[in-house]
Structures are given as C-alpha cells and as structure tokens.
C-alpha cells in the first residue's frame, strides 16, 4: 500500500527532478499539443458564440479539410493550389451547412442542432473516405514551406529536441489566435459576430444578415480547421484516426468554457501539458495509454468545482 502511494505521489516528482531535460521535453510537447487543441477548441468557440451551435463536427472538419488538401495534392494538384482549393471546399461546406442544417433548424432547441452536427460528422467521414480513401496520407510539408527536422538543444542536463514543425505549429497557432482575437475585437464583422451571440436583432442592425454571419463563421472555423489539420497531419499523418484527437478538444472546451477565446487557449495548454505529464510520469503505473481519457478526467475534475468552466459566464438560472 505504502508502495503504491509512493509510486503515485512521490516517485513521479522524483523522476521529474532527476531528469529535468525529459521534463522540459515533455512540457514542450504538451505545449505544442495544447496549442493545437486550443486551435480546434477555438473553432468550436467561434461557432458556438455566433450561432449557439455546439459543433460536434469540428474535429471531423479538421480531418476533412486536411484530407481534402492532401488528397488533392496526391491527385497531382500543386500543393499551394490544393491549399487554396481546400479553403474553397471549406467555404462550400459552410454554405451547405448554413443552407441544409442551420436554416431549416433555426429556432429548434440547441440539442437538435447538436445532434445535427453528429449527422454532419458522419456525412463528412463517409464522403472523405469515399473520395480520398481511408489510408493515412502524408502532408507535403516541403511544398507548403513548412520546416522539417529538429533543433537539438543541450540544456537541463540533457538533450531537448524541438521539432521544427512543432515550432512552426506553435507559431502559426499563436498567429491565428491573435488574428482571430483582433478580428473579433477590432473589425466590424467581428463585432457583429459577437453581437449575434447575444442578440440576433443587434446583428441585423449592423447590416449583415444572420445567414451571412453563419456562413462567415463556419467558413472561418473551416479555415482554422484546415490549418490545424495540416499541423497535426505534418506531425503524424492525415487519417480519420485524427478524429479522436479532435475529440480531445472537448475537454478543453469544458475547461475553458464554450464562449471564451482565452479559455480555449488556457484550457488547451492545461490539457495538452497535463495529459503529456500524466501519460509520461503516471501512465506506466496502470499500463499506459491513459492519454485516451486523462484529458476528460482532468476536465471533469475541474468541472465539479466550476460547472461553468474556467472563463465561462456564471450561470444565473432565472425562472
């Protein structure tokens, strides 16, 4: 018994202190993962804020977008053009979603829209696999101007290896987050998007129809998904197994709250880093693979104390 307690509560920290380079390496990987989680979560937040839809398909949109780009490339389309085409496809998707799902389901309870995004998930999986096949694909990083290789830094009493693609991912993620923040705060459309979350009438007064706003939001979320998908893909491969990773963005949302951009970032980092640390230092105790659920457990633990998330608005129930 004592041994078990020791293994849980003491030993991991001894390990961390004993090999700081490994700790830093783990933290870095957690950080990069966290940034990407944050990016996926951001897609959710965008859509939730503007249309009140909890878009379960966000994860699959990421896979679908990346798959479209890579699939087109594999079919002989030059990479930059494939990227542009993929962006175009995401636009078409946004239009289709607005037409076929949002518009007919407007005024239905939120749960209905949530369920509809399940349907969307399935359709996207089916279509993606039907057209591009189910086998994993490699992202043409070079053609997209993404770096390869790693910087090896000798520090913390050992070797810390920073993959260049990870650095690029972290940078791009940061840039996108910043860009979105600026977009929301400073631009007219961005303000309209924020307004629409609170009051549909207010949005109309800005001169943009609700339907246009939905298209814009879904398109933006699609572009974010594309970027995220390429990053993840570049780190591993593009395949539908990425979808499970996308699901990890959900605990991020719980943590950060559905409506908060900073929440998505902080939540992403907490989950990303917590998960890596947990898997690396505690995972072996129970046979490993705990990263499949650890993120949820962390989020759940937070949730029990703060049901509205870290940055969510305090819920005052009115009757």
């Amino acid at each position, binding site marked *: 018994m004592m041994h078990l307690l020791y293994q849980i509560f003491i030993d991991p920290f001894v390990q961390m202190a004993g090999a700081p380079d490994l700790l830093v390496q783990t933290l870095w990987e957690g950080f990069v993962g966290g940034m990407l989680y944050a990016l996926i979560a951001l897609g959710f937040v965008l859509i939730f804020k503007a249309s009140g839809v*909890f878009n379960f398909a966000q994860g699959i949109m990421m896979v679908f977008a990346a798959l479209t780009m890579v699939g087109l490339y594999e079919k002989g389309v030059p990479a930059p053009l494939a990227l542009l085409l993929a962006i175009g496809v995401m636009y078409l998707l946004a239009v289709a979603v607005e037409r*076929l*799902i949002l518009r*007919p*389901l407007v005024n*239905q309870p*939120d*749960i*209905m829209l*949530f*369920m*509809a995004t*399940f*349907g*969307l*998930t*399935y*359709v*996207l*999986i*089916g*279509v993606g*696999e*039907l057209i591009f096949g*189910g086998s994993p694909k490699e992202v043409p990083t070079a053609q997209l101007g993404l770096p390869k290789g790693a910087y090896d830094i000798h520090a913390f009493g050992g070797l810390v290896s920073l993959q260049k693609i990870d650095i690029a991912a972290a940078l791009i993620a940061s840039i996108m987050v910043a860009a979105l923040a600026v977009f929301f705060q400073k631009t007219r459309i961005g303000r309209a998007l924020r307004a629409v979350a609170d009051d549909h009438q207010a949005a109309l007064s800005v001169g943009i129809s609700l339907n246009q706003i939905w298209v814009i939001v879904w398109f933006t979320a699609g572009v974010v998904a594309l970027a995220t998908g390429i990053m993840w893909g570049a780190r591993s491969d593009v395949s539908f197994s990425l979808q*499970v990773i996308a*699901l990890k963005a*959900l*605990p991020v*949302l*719980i943590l950060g709250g*559905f409506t908060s951009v900073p929440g998505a970032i902080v939540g992403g980092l907490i989950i990303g880093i917590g998960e890596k640390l947990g898997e690396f230092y505690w995972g072996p105790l*129970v*046979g*490993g*693979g*705990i990263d*499949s*659920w650890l993120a*949820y*457990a962390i*989020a*759940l633990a937070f*949730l*029990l104390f703060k*049901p509205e*998330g870290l940055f969510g608005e305090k819920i005052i*129930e009115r*009757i």
Partner: protein
Amino acid sequence: MFYREVGQFKTNYAADQAIFPIRQDRIGLALILLVAFIVIPLFGGEFLIASVMIPFLVLALAAIGLNILVGYTGLISLGAAAFMGVGAYACYKLSTIFPEVNIVVWIVASGFVSAAVGVLFGLPSLRIKGFYLAIATLAAQFFLQWCFQRVPWLYNYNTSGAIEVPTHTLFGVPVTGASATPVTRYYVVLTIVVGMTWVAANLVHGRIGRNWMAVRDMDIAAQLMGIRLLPAKLLAFAVSSFYVGVAGALMVFMWLGAAEPEAFNINQSFILLFMVIIGGLGSLIGSFLGAALIHILPIIVRMVPDALGIPIGAATVEHLTFIITGAMIIFFLVVEPHGLARLWAIAKQKLRVWPFPY
C-alpha cells in the same frame, strides 16, 4: 381507419391509466408478439434470425436503455457503448468465475454491475448540465474502453485481448457458444427483451417516469415540486445502464459470441444515440423503430447493389452507410425532429380520426 373506438369507455382508473387503453392497440401488440414468438422461429431462415432479428433486438434493448437517459430524463450520454462493454465484461467474468450458475442469471446480473458503474459516472450530472454533461460522459466512454484494453483480468489474460464465449446450457439446451442454435438464442434474447420492455413501459408510465420527464422538461419546476434532482437522475443512470449493460451482455453472449474492446468504441455509442434520435426521444416504440432502421439500413445498402448487379466493395458500402446515416439524421432532424416515433404517433392519430385529417 382501423381504429374503432366507439364504445371503448373506461369504468375505472386502472383501465383508464392502462399503457394500452385502446383495444386495437392491444390486438396489434398481441399480433406482433405472436409473430415474434411463433411465426419467425417457425418460418424464419437462419439469416433472418441470427443476423437480423437477434442484433435488432439486442440493439433495441440498448436503445431503450439509452432512451431512458437521453429521451426520458434529458441527459445526453455519448458513452452508451462503454456501458454495453461493462455488461459484457461483467457477464464474462461472472460466468467464468461461477460457471455452474445459469448464464441467464449472469446476463441479468451483469446489468447490476453496469448500473453501479452508471451511477458512478452519473454523479457529476448534478452539477453539470447539457453539453457539458455530454462531454463528461465521453470520459466514461474512453476510460471504460481503456479498461477493457488495459486490464488483462477483465479478459482473463487471453493473448488475443478479446473475450470469447464458451458453451453454456439452459435446461440442458446450449444457449451460448458455437453449439447453440440461432433459434434458441433468439428465444432467450426475445424473452429478455420483451420482459424488460414491459418493465420499462411500466416505469415510464408511472411516478418514476413522470419524475424523469419532469426533470427533462423543466428541472427547476420539478425541484420546486419536491422532486430531488440527484436521486432522479441517478436512478435514470442506473436503470439506463442496467438496460444497456444487459444489452451488452446479450450482444456478446447471444449474438457475436466473442468481442474485442473495439466493439464498444465511441462509434458504437454514436450509433446507439442515432437509434434513439431517429427512433424518437422519449419513446419505447421509437427505440425499436430506430434500432430497426439503423441496423437494417446497412443490410439493405449491401443488398441493393448486389441485387442490381452492381459490384461494390465492402469499404464503399461502409462509406455509403456512413453518408446515408449522417444524412438521415440531418434529414430527420429537419423534417421530423421527434423521430420515427412521432411519425408513428401521427400515423396512428390519423388512423384514429380517419377520415378526418386531424
């Protein structure tokens, strides 16, 4: 049109509160049971019984379980398959530890294990609501699935990592394993499903069902009427998990004969949720209809191209199934958000007031 309700008056509350107050419904139900218990075993082929009816019944039972939670109590769960897994593994362990006990007893008992686990994962439901709760149930899904993979004790340290069902007998007749005939397995499944459906109907039509629905429709008002949310929700989790767990045990023991942890993955959870949504939230009939549609659809997708002579790969069939399922969900949500059950209710209402339109 077939309903002739004139003269069907009730002289006491017991008759008026009956689950099937209309005589024609009772006759219809009796006919369905007659077909299920006699016609299908007598005239159904092995394919119909083993590949259509048994899976349909098992999935319907799971859908009823999930419907109790999602449809009747309004708590979304994305982890139903994991609870099927709990039932399956519990039954597996129980029957290997005590092989001499009747397997049907263990199938039912495994429901209790599932219910207990369900209550555990239902605890956060008091503080967490709506989408947050839906995501929280994913924790159950991933954690339990991880257990099935990583806890060797659960699968008796088999090298394959899968569980396989040995032969068990009931009154000397093999009911599980390779030597059990489909008809025997069908009867076991059918009896359990019919019995449990009856119990579910009793529950949802009584005080407990009303409390669940009150919590679902307006939890604040429910509280102010003295309904305590946590017990009501936990009971829903327990009953739901019980049903789903028994369905899981039936799935492995009566249908597949063996299972890997992947059988209980998140996709299976989604499929169950689809059955409930397409079938109709808050409807037992809907659970059956949804299960029938979602289970039978792929069979048809597979058979149609064959029948038309179009060669089509197994992978393509799967992709098409995905697309059709997804499109169908969207279609149903747009056209009839309350699912097949509502269509059935509308059709029934039309028949009752025929020739009037409403």
